[in-house]
């Protein structure tokens, strides 16, 4: 089995178990038009039982009007997804990648995070690009590319020395501190690697 098929199989297995465990019938993906959302859709739509996958399209201009308290398009999509999930026994899936989950404080309010153990650089390897808040994109640029930022995060996860200049290290540590608040609530992240947020990492 190729790498993508292998990882998709694991993610879909966890998603099916999450639906069973929650007594839910539908997984509602917040489709923000990002490469991560596209990857989630590519894996989950064929990997879940027929009718069990549904995307809430945040790129549809009508989505904002359909949410009760719109903040932005993604938040509106999230509100719609939550509303549908409550009415239709569903779970909400968010497409955030592992890099974003570690560094962005408001990245993880969803029930299932299919890509939560997949670095942004690996999303890019599978889809050609990645997404994240502007602050993380800027941090990645300062590191010389998202793959270098991910390597630094990997080192941090394993308690190894991070090879970066002091200013950059300080920025990374500040981002990690901000990201910690986003990991307060337990979420389901399909475990792919040895150090996984919400499983191996303290909240």
């Amino acid at each position, binding site marked *: 089995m190729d790498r993508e098929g*292998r990882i998709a199989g694991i993610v879909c297995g*966890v998603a099916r178990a999450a639906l069973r*465990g929650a007594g839910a019938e539908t997984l509602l993906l917040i489709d923000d038009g990002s490469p991560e959302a596209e990857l989630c859709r590519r894996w989950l739509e064929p990997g879940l039982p027929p009718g069990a996958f549904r995307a809430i399209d945040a790129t549809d201009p009508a989505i904002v009007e359909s949410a009760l308290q719109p903040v932005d398009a993604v938040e509106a999509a999230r509100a719609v997804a939550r509303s549908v999930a409550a009415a239709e026994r569903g779970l909400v899936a968010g497409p955030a990648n592992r890099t974003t989950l570690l560094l962005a404080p408001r990245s993880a309010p969803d029930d299932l995070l299919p890509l939560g153990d997949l670095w942004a650089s*690996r999303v890019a390897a599978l889809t050609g690009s990645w997404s994240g808040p502007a602050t993380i994109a800027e941090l990645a640029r300062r590191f010389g590319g998202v793959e270098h930022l991910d390597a630094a995060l990997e080192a941090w996860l394993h308690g190894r020395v991070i090879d970066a200049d002091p200013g950059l290290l300080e920025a990374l540590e500040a981002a990690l501190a901000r990201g910690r608040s986003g990991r307060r609530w337990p979420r389901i*992240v399909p475990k792919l690697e*040895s150090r996984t947020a919400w*499983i191996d990492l303290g909240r």
Partner: protein
Amino acid sequence: MNADGVPTLRLAVLQTDALLEDPAANASTISDAAARVRADLTVTPELSLTGYHLEAAAASLARPVRTGEPIEGVEALAAAEGELVVGLPERSGIGPPHNCAAVLARGRVRHRHRKRYLPTYGMFDEARFFAPGEELETYVGDHGWRVGILICEDLWHPSLPYLLALEGAQVIAVLAAAAGRGAWSGGETGRFASWDHWVRLARVTAQTHGVYLALANRAGVEGPITFAGGSLIVGPDGGILAEAGADPGAVLEAVAERDALDAARASSPHARDEDPRWLAERLRRAPR
């Protein structure tokens, strides 16, 4: 016995996917599968009767495991032929339960092993909910083979298979609930890089001590964890006799032969040449 009158042992591994906290249902699944394979010794994964992530429920699900007695609530296991090795939390006194492997013959306990090394790092939290075992003994089954049991992390501590080998174990059964890790790189086995370590460990242990090794690993998903599957039966020369994929429900079978055991030990007589008295003396001086 095979056709030439050489003693044999029909070994089986059931790679099950336990339902969390449902021992009766898991016992029924195991009993049905064991009845189909009709082996002399059938091994199931760690905590195969209850599922792995029990946390505080380990105490409420724990049952006494006493030699000669059945285990309460899993009577379905009495229907299995041969010996059946299952995993469950064991109630023992007023302390925390043990992570236990029970060897059942016709539904009654023949032997038990309490997990000695409880992983409490990374994703593991076993020492919070279980007490470590103090015993390590082999037993001889009705089939006439001497068997030792280990549970998951126990295999990673070389002292334990070593001690079983010193006691004369011919077969080591390992019950495991090893989570898959390293999915991006995949490893040699093709799904999780972490499973490569297990395969190496199983093969080296079998070859080093000249024993058959049956490794039953959990398959399926529990919460965010995907268990790696990949169960194995390894011969005393370190060769893989049977190997499962990742899917729950896989069944492995192999026939252990005394001749093969003797041949492996003759060509690699490392276990024979061990000097436990020297080791005991050296350990007395080892730093602690």
